[in-house]
C-alpha cells in the first residue's frame, strides 16, 4: 500500500509539470525512436530532392513547350513529348507528399486529375476563350492529363497533331492553352519547392507532436491515402471496374498515349515503396522510415514482423504489375482479370498499411478529433 501511494505521488510530480499542449516537442532519448531524425531524413533526403528534381523537369518541359509553340514541327514535338514523359514520371515521386504548401493549393488535383475533360478544353479553344486555370472547376482541364490530350489526342496522327498547332483553324488557341498548362505545372511546383526551402521544411521537421496535426501522423495518412486512392483505385481499380461493375477504359491514366500508362503505375508504386523503406531520393542511403519505426515498435510489442510483410506485399504487387502489358487500356479491354489480380495484391497491402501499420503506430485514420473513452 505504501509503495502504491509512493508511486502515485511520484507520478503526480511528473504530471504537475505536464501540460497537454499539442505543439510541444522533445528531443528523444537514447532508447526512444528519434522521430525528428526521421522527419529530417524525409525532408532533406527524400521530399525536397524529389521536388527539386521535379521543378527542374517541369522547367525543361515548359521550355520545350515554348519551343514547340514557336515552331510546331516534328522534331520539337518529339522533344516535347520526351520532356513531358520525364516530368510525368517525376511527378509520381512527389505525388505522395500532398502536405503543407502542396495541400494548401491542392497541387495533385490541379496537376493530375484524370480523365481530362477534352470537350471542355476544345470548347474553350473554339470559342476563343482564355482558360482560367486557377478555378477549382478547371482541375479536369489542365495538368498532365491535359498535356496528354494536347500531345497525343488532338488528332489521329502526328502530322495532324502538328497541323493543329501550325496551320489549324484554332492553332493560336491550342498554342495558348498548351503554354498555359505547362507554365502552370512549373509555377505551382516552384511555389511549393520555395515554400519547403524557406520555412516549411523547418516547421515540418520541428512538428514532432504525436497529435493528429503532427508531421508523422499527417504524412502517414497522406502516404496511405496515396497508396489506396491514387495508386490502387485511380491507376488500377477504377479502370478495371472494381467500383462500378463495368470496365472504364476511358479513366486510365495517360489515356491518349496508353502505352505509357504502366510506366506511370510502376513508378508510383516504386516511389511509395521507397518512401516506406526510407530510401533517399538519389537512392544512395537509407534513413529512418516507417519500416524502421515499425521495427522499433515491434521490439516493444514482440509481434509479427509487420514491415517485412508490407515489403513482401509491395514486391508481390510489383510482380503482378510486371505481368501486365505496357498498355493498360488494352489490358482493361482484353485481359481485365490480370488488372484485377494486380488490384487484389495492392488491396492486401492496403489492409496491412491501414489497419496493422496504423494500429502499431497508434495513428488514427480520421481527422475528427473527438473524445475517446
Amino acid at each position, binding site marked *: 500500500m505504501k509503495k*502504491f*501511494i509512493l*508511486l*502515485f505521488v511520484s*507520478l*503526480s510530480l*511528473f*504530471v504537475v*509539470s*505536464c*501540460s*497537454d499542449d499539442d505543439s*510541444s*516537442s*522533445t528531443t*528523444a*532519448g537514447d*532508447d*526512444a*525512436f528519434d522521430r525528428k531524425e526521421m522527419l529530417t531524413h524525409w525532408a532533406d533526403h527524400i521530399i525536397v530532392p524529389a521536388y527539386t528534381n521535379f521543378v527542374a523537369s517541369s522547367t525543361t518541359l515548359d521550355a520545350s513547350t515554348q519551343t514547340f509553340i514557336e515552331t510546331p514541327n516534328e522534331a520539337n514535338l518529339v522533344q516535347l513529348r520526351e520532356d513531358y514523359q520525364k516530368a510525368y514520371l517525376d511527378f509520381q515521386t512527389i505525388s505522395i507528399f500532398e502536405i503543407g504548401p502542396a495541400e494548401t493549393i491542392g497541387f495533385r488535383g490541379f496537376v493530375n486529375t484524370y480523365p481530362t475533360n477534352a470537350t471542355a478544353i476544345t470548347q474553350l479553344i473554339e470559342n476563343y476563350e482564355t482558360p482560367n486555370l486557377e478555378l477549382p472547376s478547371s482541375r479536369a482541364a489542365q495538368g498532365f492529363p491535359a498535356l496528354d490530350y494536347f500531345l497525343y489526342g488532338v488528332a489521329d496522327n502526328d502530322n495532324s497533331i502538328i497541323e493543329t498547332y501550325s496551320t489549324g483553324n484554332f492553332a493560336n488557341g491550342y498554342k495558348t492553352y498548351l503554354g498555359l498548362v505547362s507554365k502552370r505545372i512549373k509555377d505551382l511546383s516552384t511555389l511549393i519547392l520555395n515554400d519547403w526551402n524557406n520555412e516549411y521544411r523547418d516547421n515540418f521537421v520541428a512538428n*514532432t*507532436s*504525436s497529435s493528429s496535426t503532427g508531421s508523422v501522423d499527417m504524412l502517414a495518412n497522406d502516404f496511405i491515402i496515396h497508396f489506396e486512392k491514387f495508386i490502387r483505385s485511380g491507376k488500377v*481499380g477504377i479502370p478495371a*471496374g*472494381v*467500383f*462500378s*461493375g*463495368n470496365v472504364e477504359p476511358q479513366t486510365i491514366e495517360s489515356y491518349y498515349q496508353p502505352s505509357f500508362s504502366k510506366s506511370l503505375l510502376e513508378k508510383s508504386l516504386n516511389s511509395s515503396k521507397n518512401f516506406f523503406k526510407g530510401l533517399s531520393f538519389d537512392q544512395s542511403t537509407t534513413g529512418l522510415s516507417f519500416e524502421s519505426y515499425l521495427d522499433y*515498435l515491434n521490439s*516493444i*510489442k514482440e*509481434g*509479427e514482423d*509487420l514491415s517485412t*510483410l508490407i515489403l513482401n506485399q509491395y514486391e508481390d504487387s510489383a510482380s503482378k504489375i510486371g505481368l501486365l502489358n505496357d498498355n493498360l487500356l488494352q489490358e482493361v479491354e482484353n485481359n481485365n482479370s490480370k488488372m484485377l489480380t494486380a488490384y487484389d495484391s495492392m*488491396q492486401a497491402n*492496403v*489492409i*496491412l498499411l*491501414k*489497419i*496493422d501499420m*496504423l*494500429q*502499431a*503506430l*497508434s*495513428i*488514427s*485514420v*480520421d*481527422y*475528427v*478529433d*473527438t*473524445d*475517446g*473513452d
Partner: protein
Amino acid sequence: MLIKIKHYFKKNTDAAPLAVFRIFFGLMMSLSIVRFWANGWIDKLYVQPKFFFSYYGFEWVKPLGIYTYFIFLIALISAIAIMIGYRYKWSILIFFLSFTYIELMDKTTYLNHYYFISILSFLMIFLPASAHYSIDAYLNPRKAYQKIPKWCIHSIQLLMSIVYVYAGLAKLNSDWLLEAMPLKIWLPSKYDIPLLGDFLQQTWVHYGFSWLGMMYDLSIPFLLLYRPTRKVAFFMVIVFHVLTRVLFPIGMFPFIMIVSATIFFDAKVHRQILKIISKVFKISYHRFQNHKTLVFSSKKNSLLTFVLVLFFTIQLFLPWRYLAYPNELFWTEEGFRFSWRVMLMEKAGYAQFKIVDAQTQKRFYVDNSDFLTPYQEKQMSFQPDFILEYAHFLGSHFEKQGHKNVEVYVESYVALNGRRSQPYIDPTVDLLQIKESFIPKTFILPFYDQIKGL
C-alpha cells in the same frame, strides 16, 4: 431484515453533499455542452453526416438537421437550471431526455462516459437535489430542507462504485494484465509528453500502468468510503484522472469524475464549499439553515424504493450479459457496450462492401466515403452491428437507384490489441438475409486466439 431496510430508509443526513453534487453536475454539463458546441462537433457529428447508426430499437431517434442545435440548446439551458436549482424536477427530467436523445442519435459516438451521464441524470430525477441551496428552496422556503434521507447520497455513491469496480473487473483479462495491451501500443505513441515521453517507451511502465489501473478501479470506491483512507484516495482520484487526461483524448470526463468523487466526503466539506460559493456570489447561506428534515410520504417512499431497486438491479446485471454469448467478447462485441469496458481495446478494421446482382453476378465495390464520415467508417469497420446496419442501408440505397436482385457482401479485416489483422465477417454471407437481433451473430468469423479472464 425488512425492519432494517425500513429503518435504513428513514435515516437522515445533511443535504449539503447532494446540493454540492447538483451544482457541480450542472456546471460540468454546461461546460461540456459549450465545449462540444465550440469545437464544432455538433455540425461535424450530427449535421453533416448523411447516415446515422441507430441503437437496436431506437431507429426513430435521429438528428434533426440544423434543428439539432436546438436539442443541444435545451440540454444546455436545463443543465444551467440544474446548477442553480431552478425548477429542478423539470430541468433534470428535460436534461435526461435531451441528453439521452443526443446520445441515441448515432451510436458511432458511443462513449461509456456519456452513458454514465445518461443514467446518472436518470437517477437524479428521483433525488431531492434542490431541497437545499437552490433557487427553488430560496423562493419557496416551504420546500427547503436541511436534511434529506441518507439513501439519496448513498445511491450516487453506489452508482459511482459500480462504474469503478466493473471497470476494474473488465481489466481482469490476459491481454490487459499479461500482455499490457493496449497500453503497450498507446503509451509509446505519447513520446512527445514532456518528461514522461521516454519513460512511456519502457515495457515495465506499460505493465505498471496496466496493473495500477486495475488496482485503482477495483479499490478506489472502498478507499473513498473508508474514512481513514479517504483523503489519500481522493488524491489518487485526482492523479489518476489528470494522468488519463494528459495521456488520452478524453475531454471533460476526468474532471467530471474528480468533482463527482466529492460525494464521498463528509458534509462538513460540502458546507464549507457552500459557504465559499455564498461568499463569492453574495448569497445568504443563512437563509438555507432551517433545520427542517425532508420526509417522503410512505406511498412515495415505496415508489422510490421500487425504482431504485429496479435501476440498480439492471445496473448490476447488464454488464454480465456477454456471458450469454458463445464467442470472444472483444472480438464480437456482443454485450460490450453499457458495461464499463473502458479503454480496453485497440481495435481497427477495414470493411469493403460488395454489391452483387444475384442473377447476372455483376458486382462492384462501394466507396464508403460516399456515405460515411471518416469517423463513422472507422467505427463501423470493426463492430458487427454497425456493419450489418450499413449493409442494409446500402442494399436499400442501391435498390432505390434501380439495381436489381441486390446482394450485399463485405470483405473485412480487423486487428485487435496488436494482433495481426484477420478476416472478420464471413465474405460469403449476403448480409441482407440477416436481421439485427440479440441472438449470437453467426456471420462473424472465429477469432484465432484466446483472451482469458472475465
